């Protein structure tokens, strides 16, 4: 079943100073099935964040439609939870208060929402931190909370924009493994923006590769690696390196595209 359906998406920005119009997204279409993990990769500035922001309802598209669960979306809503690169946790709420925020907005009774929030905090490894404030957590733990806060709300799709980009490499590996574990356990639908090829391959069922601006879908690569995945085992699979090389090629223009460009004539 399709959870997310993007068709013919385009976006023109008007530069605030020059008044010049730039087409960020040319024509992008794809779907994400329920319980599927799909990443989007592309050169810097090709419009990955823009695609996510349009899906989230933060930014209005110029053309095309976004459907979630079959309904056309307009504006932000609880059916699309967002995990931000900057975490965007509420500093004035405790860990528990942050995790239960969405449920409170849905008017879930206090007992029940606390139970659910605790369950998801435990799932992401934050049990015992319920009464801390976000600033008392490390960056990695803050992002775990960012994930728990969205999952506790049980959205149709979880949107993540480079959620681990500001976290040190060591912790990032751990967070990626934990995200995979959570995904394999709960099977949420995830749409994941990244510029890290290995990360995309490791986490995803499919990887959407965008072209440079104005972006179109260059290719959608299916990642058929066995689950559960761990960095140690998954990276040893020849298929992993193969997929990663394939995507690198696509991003750098691919061998067949590059040669004519270098040709002096």
């Amino acid at each position, binding site marked *: 079943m399709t959870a997310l359906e993007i068709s013919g998406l385009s976006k023109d920005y008007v530069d605030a100073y020059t008044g010049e119009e730039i087409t960020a997204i040319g024509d992008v279409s794809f779907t994400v099935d329920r319980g599927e993990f799909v990443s989007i990769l592309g050169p810097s500035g090709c419009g990955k964040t823009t695609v996510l922001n349009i899906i*989230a*309802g*933060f930014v209005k598209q110029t053309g095309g439609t976004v459907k979630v669960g079959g309904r056309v979306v307009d*504006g*932000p*809503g*609880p059916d*699309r*939870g*967002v995990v*931000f690169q*900057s975490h*965007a*946790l*509420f*500093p*004035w709420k405790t860990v528990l208060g942050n995790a239960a*925020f*969405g449920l409170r*907005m*849905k008017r879930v009774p206090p007992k029940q929402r606390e139970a659910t929030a605790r369950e998801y905090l435990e799932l992401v490894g934050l049990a015992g931190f319920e009464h801390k*404030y*976000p*600033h*008392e957590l490390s960056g990695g733990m803050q992002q775990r909370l960012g994930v728990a*806060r*969205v999952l506790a*709300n049980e959205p149709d799709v979880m949107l993540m924009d480079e959620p681990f980009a500001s976290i040190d490499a060591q912790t990032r590996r751990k967070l990626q493994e934990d995200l995979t574990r959570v995904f394999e356990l709960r099977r949420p639908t995830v749409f994941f923006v990244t510029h890290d090829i290995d990360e995309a391959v490791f986490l995803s069922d499919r990887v959407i590769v965008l072209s440079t601006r104005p972006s179109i879908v260059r290719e959608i690569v299916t990642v058929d690696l066995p689950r559960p995945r761990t960095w140690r085992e998954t990276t040893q699979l020849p298929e992993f390196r193969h997929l990663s090389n394939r995507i690198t090629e696509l991003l750098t223009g691919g061998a067949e595209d590059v040669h004519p460009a270098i040709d002096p004539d």
Partner: protein
Amino acid sequence: MAVTTRASARPKRTVAMPRRILVNPVVRTLGPFVPVVLLWWLLAELDVFPGAFFVGPDTVVGEFAELMRKGVLPGYLSDSLTRLMYGVGFGLLIGLPLGFAIAMSFWARRLTWPLLLFFQAIADIAWLPIVIVWFGFSLTAVTFVIVYTIVFPLVLGIVAGVEQVPRELIRAARSLGAGRLRVFLEVIVPGALPSLASGIRTGLGYGWRALVAAEIIVGTSGVGFMMFDARRVGDVAEVFLGMIVLGVLWYATDALVLAPFERATVERWGLVRQAEAGK
């Protein structure tokens, strides 16, 4: 081995001692005043200035006891504080909704900003002549001036605070299902609080000064009146006492109201770097 332990333990202790003393709240609060009072006392004892212009701490303490006994000081103090309460109360009542209304609407901000800047420029005291014409020498006149001085820093603080709320927090709340009212109550108000708190702090400080000034001019009672009246009869000790009372009251307001409020909110949430964070 033993030598190294000794050597490393030594400087540690010399650092620890003064630090322990500095951490003591009484020492930290009163400590800085000790040299000031000593200098004051020394200046008085050495008769650097004639007695009609300058009195020592002992004389002022005597004056304090006298005025407390006669009930003059408590009476004036409660008059001043009552006025301040009215002023602050109405100031908050007007300033908070006005501030958020202006901050939340682009057009309200556009339209009121020139007015805000214009009226902010008219010093509080500059209103006194016309206010006295309108309301006479009354509580209303004094309240008006205090409200005036509090509202502007408060409104400006709120507008700045609302602007500082990260856009991502609002977006996060919206995609967790918060409607406009919820976003306002749960994100914008607490997010604006650091700036709002400093607006209140500034406003209260201005209001307190405006009160004393108003009492001097409008005065029939109050600490400001007491000081000015004492000057008229040449009672320097009472003038000194009034000045000290003003300082102590502001310190108390800060220690009992403002600082605990900030500790319970802004600092608790990690929105300002606590003084201790650096150590």
